[in-house]
């Protein structure tokens, strides 16, 4: 125990730092470069776990565990949950729309990083106290002492903050139903009154090769009908279009039968 969180570091820790640090930076870079939000989230989760290891290496045992349990376990899962809710496969286009934004961002990022690093380099951080004494009564006990004495007020306020956040999230996402839900009978009556679309909506995949929910049914001319796909999927733009596939198949079939029956092609016939 004493080697960890000492004023100087062991070679093991150095090896660990260099390997895991590289991975962490890679994970961070992947987080911002991956097109899909899911991948970003997974990369971020990886980086966070590495950070948890670093916390442990720095003698912050409690924080290391909390990092894994709360951050990686809860928060990142919340992220993934929302990503799923919104559409897991919706990929971001990485094309920049604001002129010069990317260059400015890169410049600022690199500049800021360089400045920070220069600042740290400038600071005379040669003396190390180490956490040996502070952690002597146990890390968790030390933290607890501080939280319930020196930081008790801030701690109580964070409690209030958490409650507020929970309530706020519920308020934001909860939709109050202002009117009674319409019964099926009423809905059908309304449909007839409106007279826009009387029969039930067609099922997905009609006339298409597949009947998966995200494949639009085909109209007689081979074009896909968006009506057949679930509203949510439509909104997310997650419709797979297989109409061209079907048409190509049809064309190939006709071609083959023409060849076999030695009929004149349509171009020739028109001559």
């Amino acid at each position, binding site marked *: 125990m004493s080697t960890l969180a000492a004023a100087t570091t062991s070679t093991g820790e150095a090896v660990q730092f260099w390997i895991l640090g590289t991975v962490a930076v890679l994970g961070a870079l992947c987080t911002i470069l991956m097109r899909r939000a899911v991948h970003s989230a997974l990369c971020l989760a990886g980086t966070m776990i590495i950070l948890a290891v670093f916390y442990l290496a720095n003698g912050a045992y409690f924080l290391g565990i909390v990092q894994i349990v709360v951050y990686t376990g809860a928060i990142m899962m919340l992220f993934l949950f929302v990503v799923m809710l*919104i559409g897991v496969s919706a990929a971001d286009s990485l094309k920049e729309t604001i002129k010069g934004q990317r260059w400015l961002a890169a410049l600022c990022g690199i500049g800021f990083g360089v400045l920070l690093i220069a600042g740290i380099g400038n600071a005379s951080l040669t003396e190390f*106290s180490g956490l040996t004494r502070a952690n002597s009564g146990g890390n968790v006990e030390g933290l607890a002492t*501080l939280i319930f004495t020196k930081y008790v007020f801030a701690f109580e306020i964070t409690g209030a903050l958490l409650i507020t956040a929970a309530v706020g999230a519920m308020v*934001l996402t909860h939709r109050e139903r202002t009117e009674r839900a319409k019964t099926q009978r009423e809905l059908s009556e309304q449909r007839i009154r409106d007279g826009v679309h009387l029969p039930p909506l067609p099922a997905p995949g009609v006339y298409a090769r597949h009947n998966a929910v995200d494949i639009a049914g085909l109209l007689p001319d081979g074009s896909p009908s968006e009506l057949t796909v679930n509203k949510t999927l439509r909104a997310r733009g997650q419709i797979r279009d297989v109409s061209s596939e079907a048409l190509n198949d049809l064309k190939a079939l006709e071609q083959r039968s023409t060849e076999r029956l030695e009929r004149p092609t349509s171009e020739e016939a028109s001559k």
Partner: protein
Amino acid sequence: MNPVNYLYLAALLFSIGATGVLIRRNAIVVFMCVELMLNACNLAFVAFSRLHGNLDGQIIAFFTMVVAAAEVVVGLAIIVSLFRSRHSASVDDASLMKL
């Protein structure tokens, strides 16, 4: 190895996170980048805690985590309701704050 390296790492991660906030348009990813920045800070706090030999840095990192948790909850709720009304999670689409 000098534990100051942790600080360099934190600075690097922080810069990467900040750049991500600036270049990504998906609100969720932007949010993740913010989390990355927060974590970078936490790392710095923990390293400082070791440098100074007391636990205050860890306490602050702890509070950061709590606040981040609250923030994530509310932020994601906002993203969800935004998505509900606009069918998009792009931060550029919410650009009504102009004349």
